[in-house]
């Protein structure tokens, strides 16, 4: 057993209002500079839709993630030898048009335009060439709230898979929001795709970073990541990606996207996992088993044996405590209501999603007589097709989605019965049984999903600077570590004990 700690996130999609505040605050913090204008470490997609970059889920085109051949994991785009053979030209890489050509507006003109018959206009100006763009044709959220409708929705690879016809009349269609950041996977294919070894997973918290001094700009990470969350900075010619706001998480603060989330949909916490079992979990034969396999690598932070082993592995008490209080552990591993995005990519992603409930398609007849059991078929009749959610979150296994939706519905029904009344006893209902839950669990869920305060949503231990640094040495020696004398820059001519 090789225990490692991982900082992970859950997004509760039921609460996402699609306001893009996370994207904007992230943008202003990290990617608001030349070469990165087209980059959104955090973006919010309206689904169904092609997403950002266009059709990022099309693994036939971008060849992201892992694939299983003869029982062994291989990078879909090809292993190291084939990558070296393709180093002069990456056939699977997206171009700027798959993202979009970023632009600003000629605001100067509004100030300086001479007096004219017509109002002056701020024309769009490319932030790549500096030339005017007469007609912008795509943007990171061009299809926001299903804009473009029947022309754009069919570009969604998940829609193309669906058996049933999707109604595109606005009063019949469905939509949901999908905020995305880097998944900080347990089995990251971007890391394995990097010829220079510049991408790495931090040992202490699992955050995946790009070493800017080691990156040589070979660009295999760009499409090696099936989520397309590693970006090429065309100004510095290096890869950059979401860093889980590590300067904030090390200080015990949530990421900027989580901090500013208006719907409070995001939860951050620590989970413990066994690094030795990651490869095995990513290599199960049937993609539908990947979700359960992924769950099996996590360790119960309350198990005394696990705690003992974690201590041996150098994980300190505050991290173990955080893992025990982790909202992620509760939602993803204990209650199993948060699911990984596209487990079939075999990267074991660590940003989990609670699938959204949606309005019931048909009017429920005899609503006034509706018993609790009546909510069981209602789950199968929701606007967002279960197949669609399953395509996103459970490698097409609808039974997983159904169970989560039932649990979510049961939670609502139970809390309604408790606070408003007018419902029959939960105890006598088949709903509990069908959803595989208990009333206590539903109440715990309601607390965390509905009313949890800042400290419950974000359980983030501070970075362990005190554990792995010689702080006395660092004092004064920071940035000249290699040159400073071994005893540090701050020394006294007498022993500390002499001071009395």
């Amino acid at each position, binding site marked *: 057993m090789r225990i490692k700690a991982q900082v992970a996130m859950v997004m509760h999609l039921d609460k996402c209002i699609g306001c893009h505040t996370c994207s904007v605050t992230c943008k202003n913090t990290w990617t608001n500079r030349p070469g990165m204008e087209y980059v959104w470490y955090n973006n919010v997609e309206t689904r169904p839709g092609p997403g950002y970059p266009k059709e990022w889920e099309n693994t036939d085109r971008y060849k992201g993630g892992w694939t299983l051949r003869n029982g062994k994991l291989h990078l879909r785009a090809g*292993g*190291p*030898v084939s*990558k*070296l053979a393709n*180093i*002069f*030209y*990456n*056939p699977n*890489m*997206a*171009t*700027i048009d798959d993202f979009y050509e970023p632009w600003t507006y000629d605001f100067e003109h509004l100030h300086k335009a001479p007096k004219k018959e017509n109002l002056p206009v701020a024309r769009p100006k490319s932030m*790549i*060439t*500096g*030339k005017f763009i007469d007609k912008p044709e795509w943007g990171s959220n061009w299809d926001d709230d299903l804009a473009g409708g029947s022309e754009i929705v069919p570009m969604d690879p998940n829609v193309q898979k669906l058996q049933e016809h999707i109604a595109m009349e606005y009063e019949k269609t469905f939509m949901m929001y999908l905020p995305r950041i880097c998944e900080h996977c347990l*089995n*990251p294919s971007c*890391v*394995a795709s*990097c*010829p*220079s*070894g510049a*991408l*790495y*997973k*931090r*040992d*202490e918290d699992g955050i995946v970073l790009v070493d*800017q*001094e080691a*990156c*040589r*700009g*070979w*660009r295999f990470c760009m499409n090696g990541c099936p989520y397309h969350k590693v970006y*090429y900075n*065309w100004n*510095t*010619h*290096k890869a950059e990606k979401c860093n889980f706001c590590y300067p904030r998480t090390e200080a015990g603060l949530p990421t900027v996207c989580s901090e500013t989330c208006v719907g409070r949909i995001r939860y951050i916490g620590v989970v413990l996992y066994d690094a030795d079992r990651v490869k095995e979990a990513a290599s199960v034969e049937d993609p539908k088993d990947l979700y359960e396999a992924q769950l099996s690598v996590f360790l119960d932070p309350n198990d005394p044996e696990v705690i003992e082993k974690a201590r041996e592995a150098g994980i300190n008490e505050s991290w173990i405590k955080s893992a025990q209080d982790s909202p992620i552990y509760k939602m993803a591993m204990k209650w199993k209501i948060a699911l990984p995005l596209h487990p079939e990519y075999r990267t074991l992603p660590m940003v989990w999603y609670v699938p959204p409930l949606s309005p019931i398609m048909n009017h429920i007849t005899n609503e006034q007589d509706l018993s609790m059991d009546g909510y069981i078929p209602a789950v199968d009749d929701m606007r967002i097709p279960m197949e669609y959610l399953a395509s996103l979150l459970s490698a097409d296994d609808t039974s997983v989605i159904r169970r989560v939706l039932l649990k979510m519905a049961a939670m609502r029904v139970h809390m309604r019965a408790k606070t408003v009344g007018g419902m029959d006893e939960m105890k006598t209902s088949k709903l509990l049984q069908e959803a595989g839950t208990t009333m206590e669990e539903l109440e715990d869920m309601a607390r965390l999903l509905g009313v949890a305060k800042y400290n419950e949503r974000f359980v983030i231990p501070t*970075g362990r600077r005190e554990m*792995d*640094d*010689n702080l006395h*040495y660092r004092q004064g020696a920071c940035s000249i*570590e*290699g040159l400073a004398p*071994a*005893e540090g820059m701050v020394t006294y001519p007498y022993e500390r004990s002499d001071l009395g």
Partner: protein
Amino acid sequence: MGFFWWGVFPYIVGTILVVASVYRFVIRGTSWHAPSTEIFEKKWLRIGSLLFHWGILFAFIGHVMGVLIPIEFYESIGVTDHLYHIGAIAGGGIAGLMVVIGLIILLIRKFSNPRVKVHASFADYFTVIWLIVVAGLGTYMTLVYNTTVVAYEYRVTIGPWFRSLFTLQPEYELMTAVPLLFQLHVLSSFILFAAIPFTQLIHMFSFPGRYPARAPQQYRARDGYKNSRP
């Protein structure tokens, strides 16, 4: 004059190459990269870049065979001069044409695609144009001069001279009788070598040869130096 160009100049170039490369690696490490424009344009890059890069790899191997490996080696394994020249002209010619055609495609792409053009620096243009000069001279020598004038035996002049540079006893007098065309090819390529640390050519030193041997997943603890320090 011959002494300067064939006995001193190569060492100036070598010094610039080593000192400036080390400077760039140590002081400006973040600028060490392969500055790709694939994100802006893929279609022509595919043709141009693949032709150029594979061509120049073949050409490099050809130069090792012609300049670094002594003529005595070929004699000892029974390769006649005639056979050698047929191979060198055919192989070198194809490689040279690949390089030149690839470079011309890349150059046209560089100034005709607005996105690529905006981000091309003087160093980028210099690199491509100067490579065309060097490779164009080389290809002309191989394909035209060798077949119409004389199949010049550089293995007894340029080869020994180049190898003598490494023993710090440059036999510069070997180069004085070499045809002007060959002299220009050598000198222009040395200018190119001197330019390497100041241009995108630096990425040739970063070929990630260790990649196939390393573990797919990389973990790093935050402080690399913690174990080496008290």
